[in-house]
């Protein structure tokens, strides 16, 4: 990759007073960094601090430890915590198995049908997890699941082998809807690595497999670890799928337990206290990540040119394609069949039959129901704005931390703060937001900004992990070159860093935009009459047992989002495979 710095370097004007001299030497960019840090404090510290305060308050606002006592003195509550940890670790591990080979296949190999796989992954990511979970209940319900019935019909056995109402089932469903994080993270890391290092290994006699395992894989380790943490945190903060699958499976996780604290009389303090150790776990994970990655260098993008060549897999490409399709079948194609059946059915309980087909649900959703229409518009506008703000902020913070503009310790704190919002379950975080943004000086309640800021805060961790991995892979020597030649830091960022990051940023945008379109737990407490969003409508439909409408809205959401993402990439001058556009 070759970088040309085109901007002419400014000549330094001559005579200046002493103050002017000093002013000239101050790095002007520091104002931007200070602003970014201030924004971070506002968005993250403010709600989290209020949450911490609430966890030590009784109903009258007096100081107490009672919340912690009621949160942790029951074995049941601890069991739920244990279940959540098990769920998080298992789901994240399964995501590695699902996502890493697919990312490698799409980024580095000559596997066919890449477009189809990519669209299926995108679609998977868009399906709200609880809709996917309902789809899986129909597929693998122990009594009437289609897969079980198929198994019985084929083997003549008395009962089918699949039971979605189990920890295994829950792990599978959560992994299905979280592996796109892993995929996008790893793929954007792989996209940055030039083939030179792999070729060097090849020249030294290493085979394809050995090269991939000992050269390529270690280079994307930070991305894998980042996504692992993200999926782990997402899995323990999820409410929809556990509520559908864990309760019938007769076990609790943190979020189902947490929901009970909001039953009358609501115990917000206890809920806040119960969510606190999750913050501890986040700290621990970050410490581990740093331990593992700190001693090695992962810089893949330096000033020297490099070319990426696709690895020819020969016959193995079909095996790899089969694997990718198998994962997509689990996560997208099979549940999509169920969702389409329900969306197109007059009465989905009647199953497949021609007289049961109708377009009425879709027609009603798209054309007749004004609520759905405005909610759709809001959803995309808010999610889009939130993604842009989150990525801008995350980039600034990641840059500050990685280029050590503020010192190592402050950098660590900043990194932690950026990731912290993800681990606080949305329902609890919403309480913090509410407390933070309904009092002067920030009276945002009832406006769309409270939702946008909530989405920014909630998905800042995703934007950050992505930006962080991207910036880590760029060697500072590129910017140093600009600075040595007299360019400012801004010039370096604008002319060197940003062009290199474009592709990762496109990935980051998808990763923030899509979860923001389906975000429910904060939205449900923060939306108001004029700021309805689709996720809340979807939740209402599931609460009302109206599966035909639920599926229709879900289907519309999937179609519009896929279309928007594809159009977006076209407009950005790259194809939807995120391949480099010819220059």
């Amino acid at each position, binding site marked *: 990759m070759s970088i040309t710095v085109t901007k002419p370097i400014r000549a330094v004007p001559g005579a200046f007073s002493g103050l002017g001299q000093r002013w000239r030497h101050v790095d002007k960019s520091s104002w931007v960094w200070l602003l970014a840090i201030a924004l971070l404090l506002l968005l993250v510290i403010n709600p989290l601090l209020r949450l911490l305060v609430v966890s030590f308050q009784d109903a009258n606002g007096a100081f107490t430890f009672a919340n912690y006592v009621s949160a942790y003195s029951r074995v*049941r509550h601890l069991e739920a915590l244990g279940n959540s940890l098990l769920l998080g670790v298992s789901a994240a591990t399964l995501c590695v198995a699902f996502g890493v080979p697919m990312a490698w296949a799409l980024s580095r190999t000559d596997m066919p049908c890449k477009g189809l796989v990519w669209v299926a992954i995108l679609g998977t990511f868009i399906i709200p997890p609880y809709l996917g979970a*309902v789809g899986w*209940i*129909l597929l693998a*319900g*122990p*009594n*009437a*699941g289609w897969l079980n019935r198929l198994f019985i019909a084929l083997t003549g056995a008395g009962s089918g082998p699949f039971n979605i*109402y189990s920890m295994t089932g829950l792990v599978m469903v959560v992994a299905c809807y979280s592996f796109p994080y892993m995929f996008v993270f790893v793929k954007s890391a792989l996209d940055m690595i030039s083939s030179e290092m792999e070729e060097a290994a090849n020249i030294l006699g290493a085979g394809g497999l050995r090269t991939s395992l000992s050269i390529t894989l270690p280079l994307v380790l930070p991305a894998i670890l980042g996504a692992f943490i993200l999926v782990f945190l997402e899995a323990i903060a999820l409410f929809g799928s556990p*509520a*559908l699958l*864990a*309760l*019938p499976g*007769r*076990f*609790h996780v943190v979020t189902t337990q947490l*929901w*009970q604290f*909001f*039953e*009358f*009389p*609501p115990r917000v303090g206890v809920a806040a206290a119960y969510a606190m150790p999750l913050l501890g776990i986040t700290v621990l994970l970050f410490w581990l990540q740093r331990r593992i990655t700190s001693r090695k260098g992962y810089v893949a993008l330096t000033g020297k040119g490099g070319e990426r060549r696709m690895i020819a897999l020969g016959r193995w490409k079909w095996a790899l394609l089969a694997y990718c399709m198998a994962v997509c079948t689990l996560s997208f194609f099979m549940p999509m069949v169920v969702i389409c059946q329900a969306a197109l059915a*007059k*009465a*989905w*309980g*009647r199953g497949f039959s021609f007289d*049961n087909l109708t377009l009425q649900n879709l027609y009603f959703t798209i054309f007749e129901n004004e*609520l759905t229409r405005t909610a759709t518009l809001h959803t995309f506008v808010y999610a889009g704005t939130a993604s842009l703000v989150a990525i801008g902020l995350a980039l600034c913070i990641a840059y500050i931390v990685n280029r050590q503009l503020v010192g190592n310790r402050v950098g660590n704190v900043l990194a932690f703060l950026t990731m912290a919002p993800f681990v606080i379950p949305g329902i609890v975080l919403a*309480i913090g937001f*509410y*407390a933070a943004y*309904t*009092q002067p000086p920030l009276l945002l*309640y*009832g406006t769309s900004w409270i939702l946008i800021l909530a989405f920014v805060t909630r998905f800042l961790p995703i934007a950050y992990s992505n930006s962080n991995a991207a910036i880590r892979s760029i060697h500072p020597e590129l910017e140093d070159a600009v600075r040595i030649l007299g360019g400012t830091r801004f010039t370096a960022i604008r002319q060197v860093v940003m062009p290199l990051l474009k592709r990762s940023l496109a990935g980051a945008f998808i990763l923030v935009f899509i979860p923001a379109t389906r975000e429910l737990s904060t939205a*449900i*407490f923060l939306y*108001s*009459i004029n700021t309805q969003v689709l996720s*809340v*409508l979807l939740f*209402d*439909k599931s*609460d*009302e*047992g*109206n*599966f*035909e409408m639920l599926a229709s809205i879900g289907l519309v959401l999937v179609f519009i989002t896929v279309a928007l993402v594809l159009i977006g990439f076209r407009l950005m001058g790259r194809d939807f495979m995120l391949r480099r556009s010819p220059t």
Partner: protein
Amino acid sequence: MTRPNFHPCAALLAILLAAGSAAAHADMPAWEKELYDAAKKEKEFTVYTAHYSTEEAANLCNAFEKKYPGVKCNFVRTTAQVAFQRLQQDMQSKQAVATIFSSTDVSHYPELKKRGALMQYQPHNLVNMVDSLKQYNDKDGYYDVTAAALMTICYNSSLVSEKDAPKNWTDLLDPKWKGKVSIGHPAFSGYVGTWVVLMQKLYGWSYFEKLEKNQPQIGRSVNDTVTMLNAKERWVAAGPEATTLLSRDKGNPLAVLYPTDGSLLMVSPSAILKNAPSPNAGKLYMEFMMSKDAAEVQVKSHALAVVKGVAPAPGAKPLEQIKVVRPTEEEIAKGIPEVKEKFRDTFGV
């Protein structure tokens, strides 16, 4: 360009409609006219409601706006606990958003009344209310029942014939339903909580110990049972009459059966908030909820009418022909926290 054609009939219709609404306006008793005029000055009001589905809440608001043009009815429809949490947040931040609070969790009201958050109002239309429901209104006039529904035995009619279906609550304990029963969770649903209290009152806790032997599937909300029956994952359920019938109306193979030992009556009050931004519109809304106009909207989605003389939608029995039971308010308030714990001991979740 063609000129728009006004059909003479349309014009006539418009005149008739205008005359009709003017007549309706003229028909209003003095108190109603007074409230309406005051409400018009307030322009709009907001209802926090957990009572209905989104569509029904919208239909009720539309019916209100049709009856009282010039007063805009907004609603935030969500679950009872979310509605309560939002109201609490509003109160903490001293923001008055909602005028009406309509929860399905009856324990919210005594608490709000105690805190002085509710406005006292005796609707004139209270006389229209079904007599058996009047006992659930607040005796001091702080809240009144505006919605009622039943919890019944529901089943998938493509798997279970009417003859074989359970006839009363204890039939669900029959070993022939092993692995085929669906219920909700008392910690997630006020309906289920009240139902568990009722079963304990009628048959003692051993009812649930026996039920556990039948390995029921435990969902979250009471409406989850509808999904489970439709999916054929389960055959019979302790479920909601209205949601089940609504799903059946679309053609799903579902049916409800009124247990001989009594369907559980769920009553849901509404209250005007003391700091209501539009108090007169709030009062007018309470009057409206006890009028036939509102009841006719409600019965369309299989909710029970709270006013006399409104026939239920086809497929549902009229309230006076059904044996209904309900624990006392005290039993419910005291019982729900207690049965949540016991439920967890027995079922493990």
